[in-house]
């Protein structure tokens, strides 16, 4: 029987692990991302590859060492580098002498057979009914995880004692992880939300609102973005993350495979600044910044992996968006060299500026 593994992607890994297990596969989850994962990835990946490629490669190496023999990876059709990750990672792992199979899940480019082959390889043993049930649970779980995450961001900004929200959130995650059916997922979500609601709050705090935009992997994986949400939350900032994977799947997997347009409002918001798709999440980063500005957010933080081409296009245009929409932004490229202390200092300075700006605004109104 195959032993299947996959790369980490924030809390999404919990849902994906459940899906693979639900399909009756033997799952070898990659060990949690640590310094060692990053070191392994950096050692073997190309120097200028973007950070997500390096982390995923580290995940694969650790999982293969733990006994996995099949890697499930997402792919794409360009022009973002992500679509080519699988090809390069496969060659690197082959050169390292591992024996494995790599299943890259990507949109069919006119041929349906490779997609069916991969689906068969993954759910060959289970019935269609079982597969559909597993998918249903997976979808519910993804949505539940996103809902819990969004709520945790609101609560963390107002917590009375630092760290209580993160603790409750972690408990909630383990509840959701254990859920096996859609019903259980709903039940655990209710319990997890109740845990968050019990966190003592301080309602006198002056809460800033900051939107988080940028490259999808960097936003979703807390290890990659140096826990930016937690750091900001504990400074009393209510963070709103622009990307949630459940929305992304809905738009890119369901709607686009039915040729339905999705994400129109983001594209429309970005249109005055960038008319054309630039691969990856570049145009969306701009559109979401515009939307945050119009929703009255105090600022936007743009996070990108070093050398990420689509986000560099966005970064070049962000000053113009910031000026015309009147929203301050901070653009931070991150990679394995990023130091946490410097990162926190920059965030603190930005938050201070936003507080001053708000006070000035309040004064001019009163």
């Amino acid at each position: 029987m195959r032993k299947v593994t996959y790369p980490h992607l924030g809390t999404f890994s919990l849902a994906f692990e459940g899906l693979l297990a639900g399909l009756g596969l033997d799952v070898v989850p990659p060990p949690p991302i640590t310094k060692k994962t990053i070191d392994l990835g950096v050692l073997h990946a190309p120097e200028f590859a973007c950070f997500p490629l390096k982390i995923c490669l580290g995940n694969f190496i650790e999982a293969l060492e733990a006994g996995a023999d099949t890697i499930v990876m997402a792919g794409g059709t360009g022009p973002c580098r992500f679509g080519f990750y699988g090809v390069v990672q496969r060659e690197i792992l082959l050169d390292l002498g591992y024996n494995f199979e790599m299943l890259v899940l990507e949109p069919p480019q006119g041929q349906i057979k490779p997609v069916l082959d991969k689906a068969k390889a993954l759910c060959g043993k289970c019935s269609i009914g079982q597969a559909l049930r597993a998918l249903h649970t997976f979808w519910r779980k993804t949505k539940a995880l996103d809902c819990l995450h969004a709520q945790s961001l609101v609560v963390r900004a107002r917590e009375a004692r630092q760290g209580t929200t993160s603790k409750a959130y972690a408990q909630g995650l383990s509840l959701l992880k254990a859920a096996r059916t859609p019903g259980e997922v709903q039940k655990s979500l209710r319990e997890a939300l109740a845990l968050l609601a019990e966190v003592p709050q301080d309602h006198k705090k002056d809460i800033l609102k900051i939107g988080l935009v940028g490259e999808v992997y960097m936003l979703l994986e807390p290890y990659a973005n140096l826990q930016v949400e937690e750091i900001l939350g504990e400074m009393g900032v209510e963070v709103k993350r622009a990307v949630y994977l459940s929305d992304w799947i809905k738009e890119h997997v369901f709607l686009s495979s039915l040729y339905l347009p999705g994400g129109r409002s983001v594209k429309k918001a970005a249109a005055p600044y960038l008319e054309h798709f630039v691969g990856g999440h570049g145009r969306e980063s701009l559109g979401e910044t515009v939307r945050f500005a119009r929703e009255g957010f105090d600022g936007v933080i743009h996070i990108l992996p070093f050398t990420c081409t689509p986000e560099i296009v966005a970064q070049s245009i962000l000053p113009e968006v910031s000026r015309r929409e009147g929203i301050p932004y901070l653009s931070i490229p991150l990679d394995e060299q990023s130091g946490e202390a410097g990162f926190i200092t920059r965030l603190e300075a930005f938050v201070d500026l936003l507080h001053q700006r708000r006070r000035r605004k309040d004064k001019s109104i009163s």
Partner: protein
Amino acid sequence: MAVTVGIPRALLYYQYYPAWEAFFRTLGAEIVLSAETSKSILNQGVRLAVEEACLPVKLFLGHVADLRDKGVDMLFIPRIVSVEAKKYFCPKFLGLPEIVRCCVSGLPEILSPEINIAKKPVRTRVEICRLAARFDRRPWVIDRALAAANEAHAAYKKLLQSGCTPQEALDGGRQACREGKIRVAVLGHVYNVNDNYFNCNLLAKLREMEVEIVTVEMLPAEAFACGGKWLEKESFWSFGHELLGAGCFLLQEKSVQGLILVAAFGCGPDSLICELLARYYKRSSSIPVLLLTLDEHSGEAGLVTRLEAFIDMLRRREAV
């Protein structure tokens, strides 16, 4: 007086300039080129761009600023998305008109037709015709301009395949001495290999060392299909596809003694493509590879030392 159209001497200038020139000339526009890349253009580009951008894009912005200072009426910065099915250019080409607009101030009007053969072939033609109609509304003149552009591009390609580098071909087909005891492939994006300031005169230096040079442009189009056979999935970047194809073709033929890869610091597609090529060459372990990563801090002396060491090593291998 004729309208002046500024064309930056950077990026795809090296690939399409003859076609662009023929197109605009036929339409009665006057073309103004930016000056050749120099220290001041580089400095200006570095000042204007975000620091994350790759050097070719920074240089492009420098050239645009140079044209602005020359006072052209219009700038030609097409949005080149794709020129063949299922393959794209790098994301920076897709957003180039906007990058220029946001980073350089005080610009004249920018002509940026969208070239997207993969997804919107009809729209591409409409955009080109609309662009042409701005200069001359007569349909037969537009047809003639398109035909002239095609013809010029075909002639340019033929010249390149005969062994000219793009720089020589653009200078009027004057060919430098191409005899050499050893043959080395210099593979990289056309704007990296041919901008003499950017790569510290790499090609001329190799020729001085009596090295015969092969570049991507000199290979027949069939060679590029080679790369696909080695991979599960073809590269979805046009440049990447050509590089991989050319590299794999030369490795199969074993017709070169060494391979020099020229990449810009932080180049997204090349970070993966060069890695694959280097791995393939290492596996077959018959042809040495030198990877030159260039940015605005490249020192000429260091580059020369590395080149000399590489060529010396190749010579010694030949002698043994």
